[in-house]
């Protein structure tokens, strides 16, 4: 892996975002709206119950923040790739000495940056407006955030592979992928509220354990190492599979002569 290539792509993203303030707004807009909706709902429910509602309503705000980490990480990888599809720059990259790993790493690093910005804003606003302090979860946040990031990158790789294979027709799907898994991932409710078959799917997703863990931690239950281990193990499996699919799609593109035409079908 050549770090100067990774650096080149990071520089490109930096140019892109410093030139375009609308992108920075986009970065904060959606999580902000979501926070306002769920946060206000929390306030409303709390008020109705005269403070009787247990703290489970704060799950909603925690869910918004945690979900955004996953979603931003996926977007970091997928949008960086789409950026090159949209601008017809993909051909230039394929004929430049750029390894897929370098390209992905840049997308991931950039994704971390995007996530940090968006999630920081969320954390601050949630604390100021809804009295929700994410840091009550203390060090448990580190493995939680880490696991969500990993799975976000995996989904980003899968989205890129889809676009590479099926062209821009798959673009809408690439956006939808995180939401496809959202119901089973139990972002806002516990696993046992899903029907049996839904729980089965949920158990195959590394992020489900994290959302479950978040709720437990907010309830001051002891940290569940078993759940974290399960999440990390599943992450490895998913990531290996996604990397395999990504590499396979690239290789099959070369065999079928489709790489030169990713933008045009």
């Amino acid at each position: 892996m050549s770090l100067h290539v990774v650096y080149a792509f990071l520089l490109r993203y930096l140019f892109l975002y410093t030139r375009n303030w609308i992108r920075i707004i986009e970065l904060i807009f959606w999580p902000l709206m979501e926070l306002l909706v769920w946060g206000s709902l929390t306030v409303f429910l709390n008020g109705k119950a005269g403070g009787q509602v247990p703290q489970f309503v704060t799950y909603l705000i925690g869910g918004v923040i945690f979900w955004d980490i996953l979603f931003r990480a996926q977007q970091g990888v997928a949008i960086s790739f789409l950026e090159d599809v949209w601008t017809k720059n993909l051909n230039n990259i394929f004929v430049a000495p750029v390894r897929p790993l370098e390209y992905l790493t840049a997308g991931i690093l950039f994704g971390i940056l995007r996530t940090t910005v968006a999630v920081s804003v969320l954390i601050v606003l949630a604390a100021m407006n809804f009295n929700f302090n994410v840091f009550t979860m203390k060090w448990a946040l580190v493995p939680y955030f880490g696991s969500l990031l990993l799975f976000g990158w995996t989904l980003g790789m899968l989205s890129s592979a889809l676009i590479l294979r099926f062209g821009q027709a798959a673009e809408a799907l690439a956006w939808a992928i995180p939401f496809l898994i959202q119901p089973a991932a139990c972002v806002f409710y516990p696993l046992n509220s899903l029907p049996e078959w839904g729980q089965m799917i949920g158990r195959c997703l590394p992020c489900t354990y994290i959302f479950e863990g978040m709720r437990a931690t907010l309830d001051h239950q002891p940290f569940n190492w078993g759940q974290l281990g399960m999440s990390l193990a599943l992450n490895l499996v998913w990531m290996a599979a996604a990397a395999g699919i990504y590499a396979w799609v690239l290789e099959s593109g070369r065999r079928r002569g489709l790489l030169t035409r990713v933008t045009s079908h």
Partner: protein
Amino acid sequence: MSEPVLAVHELHRKFGDHVAIEKLSFQIQRGEVLGLLGANGAGKTTAMGSILGMIKPTSGSIRVFGMDPYHDRIKVLRRLNSSSAYSDLPANLLVWQNLYVFAKIYRVQNSKQKIADLLEMFEIAHLRNRVTGHLSAGENTRLHLCKALINDPELLLLDEPTASLDPEIADKVRKIVRRVQREKNIGILYTSHNMLDIEEVCDRVLFMHRGRVVADGTTQEIIAKFDQKNMEDVFIRIVRDGNIEDAPAKETAAV
């Protein structure tokens, strides 16, 4: 003769049942400009894609600097570059930013100076701070050529570099290609539908038709062989007649 920068041997490429390239063989030496000519769909872009490691040949071999571009992709790509009418540089970056990113990818030393020199050479230095998407087609093409020369390639692949250029700029681009080839002694593969390009820029021409080479030589040789007035007429004759089994295709394979 020294080792050719590019050697293609019996290259075959099929897409399903469709044969895009059949038995393509040629070499490019250092300091030589080879023109690849042919009607739409003749297989020129497919040939370039194969040389760039983007398309896997069905059979046959390609050697760039003695290496296989498919297996030694990164090593090969570091030393060549290309510009194609089929790609674009990100429209939302400034001209210098685009070149700077590629300079970093190719690890160009003294990149700021290099970029300034290239912009100067193609007479677009005044566009340095322009948004790439705002460039005219001709300005954009010249920016592409700057990108294609940024790593001082030893082999340059140009797919229709003068498409959408006005005659005066096209003339300049031809002269620059000539100058680069002379000064840096690099090999160039050049496709174009502009016969003036071919006559002026190329040392040697390969005429492809339906994936096969039907003529190979200097423009004068080819014009004489087909008994025509100029390359334009040769082109029309080959493409209209279609089936030229008797054409001097066989003897041209080994160069």
